[in-house]
């Protein structure tokens, strides 16, 4: 009966329970916490639920869903070659699990984040920004938070690549954060992605105290005149022009902005409805599933359970708060310059988190004066913030990438 004994021994050696580390246990709890937040409080469930549950799954030992390290030490001559890397990792760590395939071929190649930008473009109406182009500047101002967070991260000892990835959390754009972190500092991808999506869903809690502290009731009561209507022609021209202008000025932002604008052109052109629908629905849903599972699968004990992660979560708040402050400050400047015709609060919507922060601004305005409707004006900085963050990411990539 040596065979049976052998089988049993083999089997028990491979039993997950006996190979469970404390790190695994903690990571499983972290994953469960994300799942709980996603379901109970509907915190960005479309991403935090897949991220959380796949974090649980990859931390079950020997499960063979993710066999390869997230940030492997590669020989120099293949480090930049994704195809050689795949072959090398297979050699070193065995055949890929499903999460390795998703992570390395779909996320590391930037395919998934870019396709999500494509879908977002097909979902976004840039009308309010086209109607009032000066609001685009507020989308720029809110990016100050990105740089403040980056400097704070540097001061705390992160290296430049990591600091840039952490700073971009302040842009409140999940896919941009994932895109940049994957390129610059994949070892902290789990932490920055979780931070970005968590705080995005906490915008209604983070922003109001800051906005109230920085504005007077009189300022919050400023009413703005109705936005002019935007023609279909302008909406069609916008993505083309934006793609060319930004592409020529910051080519490293061209993938993000370009895919966003292609999606938007599909939407506004009105002649390719089935492609526009596909970008928003079937392709978007499939890609979102892979993004969530892939990002969650990078949350392994060894790379996630570090003091760094806690710092990143802390820095995320710094980033969101300073971005809000930057937006409001610039809003006050524009209020002065316009002779009081601009409500400074709409600057806070420049952090993106479309359309949450615009709604937050409207809510505060309504509290002061129930007849004050600045929602649409806040949507201008809001969508501009998406472009602003992509440009900031482009600058980081141009200098560091």
């Amino acid at each position, binding site marked *: 009966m040596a065979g049976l004994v052998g089988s049993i021994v083999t089997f028990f050696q491979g039993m997950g329970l006996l190979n469970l580390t404390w790190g695994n246990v903690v990571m499983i709890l972290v994953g469960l916490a994300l799942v709980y937040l996603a379901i109970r409080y509907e915190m960005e469930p479309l*991403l935090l639920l897949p991220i959380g549950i796949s974090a649980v799954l990859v931390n079950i030992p020997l499960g063979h869903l993710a066999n390869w390290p997230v940030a492997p030490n590669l020989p120099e001559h293949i480090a930049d070659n994704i195809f050689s890397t795949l072959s090398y990792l297979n050699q070193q760590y065995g055949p890929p699990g499903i999460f390795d395939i998703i992570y390395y071929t779909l996320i590391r190649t930037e395919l998934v984040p870019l396709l999500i930008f494509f879908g*977002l473009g097909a979902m976004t109406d840039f009308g309010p920004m086209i109607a009032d182009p000066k609001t685009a500047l507020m989308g720029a101002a809110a990016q100050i938070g990105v740089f403040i967070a980056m400097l704070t991260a540097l001061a705390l000892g992160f290296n430049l690549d990591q600091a840039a990835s952490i700073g971009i959390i302040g842009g409140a754009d*999940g896919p941009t954060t994932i895109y940049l972190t994957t390129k610059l500092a994949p070892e902290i991808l789990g932490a920055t992605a979780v931070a970005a999506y968590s705080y995005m869903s906490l915008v209604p809690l983070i922003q109001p105290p800051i906005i109230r502290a920085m504005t007077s009731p009189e300022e919050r009561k400023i009413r703005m005149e109705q936005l002019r209507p935007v023609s279909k022609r302008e909406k069609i021209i916008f993505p083309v022009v934006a793609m060319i202008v930004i592409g020529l000025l910051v080519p490293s932002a061209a993938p993000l902005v370009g895919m966003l604008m292609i999606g938007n052109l599909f939407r506004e052109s009105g002649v390719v409805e089935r492609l526009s629908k596909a970008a928003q629905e079937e392709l978007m849903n499939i890609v979102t599933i892979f993004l969530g599972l892939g990002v969650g699968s990078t949350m392994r004990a060894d790379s996630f359970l570090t003091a760094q992660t806690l710092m990143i979560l802390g820095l995320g708040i710094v980033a969101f708060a300073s971005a809000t402050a930057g937006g409001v400050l610039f809003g006050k400047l524009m209020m002065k310059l316009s002779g009081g015709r601009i409500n400074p609060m709409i600057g806070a919507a420049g952090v993106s988190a479309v359309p949450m922060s615009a709604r937050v601004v409207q809510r505060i305005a309504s509290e002061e004066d129930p007849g004050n409707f600045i929602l649409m004006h806040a949507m201008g900085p809001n969508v501009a913030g998406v472009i602003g963050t992509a440009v900031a990411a482009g600058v980081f990539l141009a200098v560091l990438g």
Partner: protein
Amino acid sequence: MAEFMEGLNLTVLGVTIVFTVLAILAVVLYAVGWAERRLVEKEAKTAPSPASTPAPAPEAKEEKPAIPPRDLAVITAAVLAYTAEKASQLRPLPFKRKISDSWRLYGLQTQMEDVEDFNYEIGKW
């Protein structure tokens, strides 16, 4: 010039084959069509009188003429008017509005209709 000659050869070959293949396909389709007709004939013989079954259908249409067209028009107009009336009324605000997926997705997907769902009368979503 050699290439052009080769092209001519290819043309002869190509045209021949394209015609041959589609001709064979046509012949096969004629054969299939013929077989189908034979089969249908056979099936018709084995099931001789299927025509009697679908008889009960007509009775459903008999009540139609009972109502004069004028009454019809009045009633229909009434229903349409009511529907239009109702649609023109202010849609009541849902108690706890469920945040749509599009609102949530990555914090970006505007879908302006959602934003415009803001109820300007009561200043709330």
